[in-house]
């Protein structure tokens, strides 16, 4: 379950200390854009120490490393991988070769250090025209990939569009990412909403993303977490419907029926799959907690 992914600057001890208290399902320690070139060294040491010592409970710990085009990404991985993050997020991924380079480098570290191979997952950040075009290729490039994440800001710069709140300029890319992710069986994560003071706009944007099939959304302000969580949490009605879908299917199977219908509508495989997904999330959130 990755409804909200909260970005935390990798060189800010206060934010790192408190990253896990806002209810985000995942926290992304950022070594890339949030850290100036002069502080890359200090940030990766700080994040490594945080990963090794701070108890983040059930919160997933993701580290965004620097891009393959920089001199930093290998140092990032050398320092971070032994500290055991859950996920590495490489930015500006353009195709499967990028994933292969990163994966073989990670595997090398795992082998050298005697770390169990393959436990650390990948969520590539797709934020260029080429990346979007190759989204599916990226999503299936490695078994480590557990999701793909659309970065709207860099993308719009790359395609020469103006980034708007409404987001028409990234509509195609969003659709493309969702389709690629679902085809590959990984989760689709939406770009963050960057106006930290516009809660209404944030909620609309999240509702749009969820409606399109995204599983979750990145956030850059702790104050956004509760809203994004709420949008990506199944409603009571959705949960109730999902239960009835599964009951009807079970009944149908028992009675040996090929086709099952509920409320006059045919229930087919995708509806069942969706119902199962919703109930899984509901189970994880037992007690009605949004946090």
């Amino acid at each position, binding site marked *: 379950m990755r409804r909200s992914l909260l970005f935390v600057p990798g060189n*800010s*001890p206060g934010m790192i200390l408190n990253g896990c208290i806002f209810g985000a399902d995942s926290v992304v320690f950022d070594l890339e854009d949030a850290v100036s070139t002069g502080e890359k060294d*200090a940030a990766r*040491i700080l994040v490594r120490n945080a990963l090794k010592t*701070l108890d983040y409970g059930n919160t997933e710990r993701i580290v965004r490393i620097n891009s393959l085009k920089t001199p930093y990404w290998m140092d990032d991985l050398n320092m971070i991988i032994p500290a055991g993050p859950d996920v590495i997020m490489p930015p500006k991924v353009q195709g499967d070769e990028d994933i292969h380079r990163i994966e073989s480098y990670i595997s090398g570290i795992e082998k050298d250090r005697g770390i169990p191979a393959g436990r650390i997952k990948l969520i590539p950040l797709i934020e260029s025209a080429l990346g979007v075009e190759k989204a599916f290729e990226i999503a299936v490039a490695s078994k480590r990939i557990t999701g793909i994440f659309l970065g709207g800001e860099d993308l719009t710069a790359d395609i020469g569009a103006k980034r708007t709140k409404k987001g028409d300029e990234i509509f195609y890319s969003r659709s493309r990412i969702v389709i690629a992710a679902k085809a590959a069986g990984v989760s689709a994560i939406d770009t963050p909403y960057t106006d930290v003071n516009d809660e209404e706009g944030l909620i609309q944007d999240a509702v749009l993303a969820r409606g399109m099939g995204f599983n979750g959304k990145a956030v850059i302000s702790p104050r956004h977490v509760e809203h994004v969580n709420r949008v990506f949490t199944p409603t009571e009605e959705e949960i109730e419907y999902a239960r009835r879908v599964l009951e009807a299917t079970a009944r149908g199977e028992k009675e040996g029926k090929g086709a099952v219908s509920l409320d006059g509508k045919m229930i087919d495989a995708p509806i069942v799959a969706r119902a199962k997904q919703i109930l899984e999330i509901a189970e994880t959130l037992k007690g009605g907690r949004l946090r």
Partner: protein
Amino acid sequence: MKLAKMSIAGSLESNDALITIQPVDKRGVELVIESIVEKQFKDRIEKAVRQVLKDYDIDGVYVRVQDRGALDCTLKARMEAAILRGKGDLQ
């Protein structure tokens, strides 16, 4: 071993510490700690700082810690960054 040059790491933000280290012409560690939680944590701060110096086998050094309530893991990270910078290994 000796550091190659003076270096600093960290910041004066809340929960952080600014660490300055400098090679000096005598043996041992000259340590200055200024902390907003000095009464409660001075001994622990000193322990964390000395631990990292020992891990890197640094001697003949002046260390100034301006602490704004950093956790041990942060203090150690800042010390490590300062040492690596001072050794000239990084940047």
